[in-house]
């Protein structure tokens, strides 16, 4: 008999949310840049876990593949090609730390107050799980044009990145 795991779902949910925020804090305050990159990976994985909880499986897998797999690798490459592990005694934050914290806190309080003031769960009942087939059908019917435009954007990005970072030899 398989144990019923759905009773643990709220715990997984809150655990992922807390982990995402704690890792996010480490991303923006860590002194060693490579550790920040690893914390970013943990935060992105926790968000993927949150997607799994709301049964957005396809999105969760895409998040892991693209964000954790591709973007994080790129960031690790960029860190290694520039400062490497670096000197942890060099301050990573500029002198605007206090005003920045105040502005951020003000934005956060505004967002949270607006969020709490609205009775979200009474506005509409949660929808049933959307199967992956439906997501795929929506992607290639109603959203076909943006889907194709994204591929043009990808090609433009690739060519642009190569053109920007290619070493130019002086004309002989």
């Amino acid at each position: 008999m398989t144990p019923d795991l759905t009773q643990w779902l709220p715990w997984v949910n809150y655990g992922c949310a807390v982990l995402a925020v704690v890792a996010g804090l480490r991303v923006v305050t860590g002194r060693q840049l490579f550790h920040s990159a690893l914390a970013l990976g943990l935060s992105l994985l926790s968000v993927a876990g949150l997607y799994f909880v709301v049964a957005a499986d396809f999105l969760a897998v895409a998040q892991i593949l693209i964000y954790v797999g591709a973007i994080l690798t790129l960031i690790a490459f960029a860190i290694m090609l520039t400062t490497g592990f670096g000197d942890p005694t060099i301050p990573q934050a500029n002198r605007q730390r206090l005003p920045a914290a105040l502005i951020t806190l003000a934005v956060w309080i505004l967002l949270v107050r607006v969020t709490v003031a609205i009775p979200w769960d009474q506005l509409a009942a949660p929808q049933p799980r959307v199967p992956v087939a439906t997501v795929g059908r929506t992607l290639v019917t109603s959203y076909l044009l943006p889907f194709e435009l994204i591929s043009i954007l990808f090609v433009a990005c690739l060519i642009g990145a190569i053109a920007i970072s290619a070493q130019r030899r002086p004309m002989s």
Partner: protein
Amino acid sequence: MPLAAWFITSATLFCLGLYGVLTRRNAVAILMAIELMLNAANLNVVATARLLDARGEGQVVALFIIALAACEAVVGLAIILTVYRQAKSIWADDLHLLKG
């Protein structure tokens, strides 16, 4: 988890990213903070989609945001690498000349 908790998680992640963009000196770290903000926006879209969406449009939009974030990271890191080669500095507060 009630929907408000999702929104608060996403708002917190967004504000952390904002703080990172405002305070970090390393250009790569600023880019990482931007990724955090994009991710928070995505979380918000998915949380709202759970309430209103029966056709998977929320997931499709979130997928587009992930793709755009990938493009942004590629071009951003290429620019950072070129600037690092030219100016020999990764600190955003050193890079204050557009030409020179």
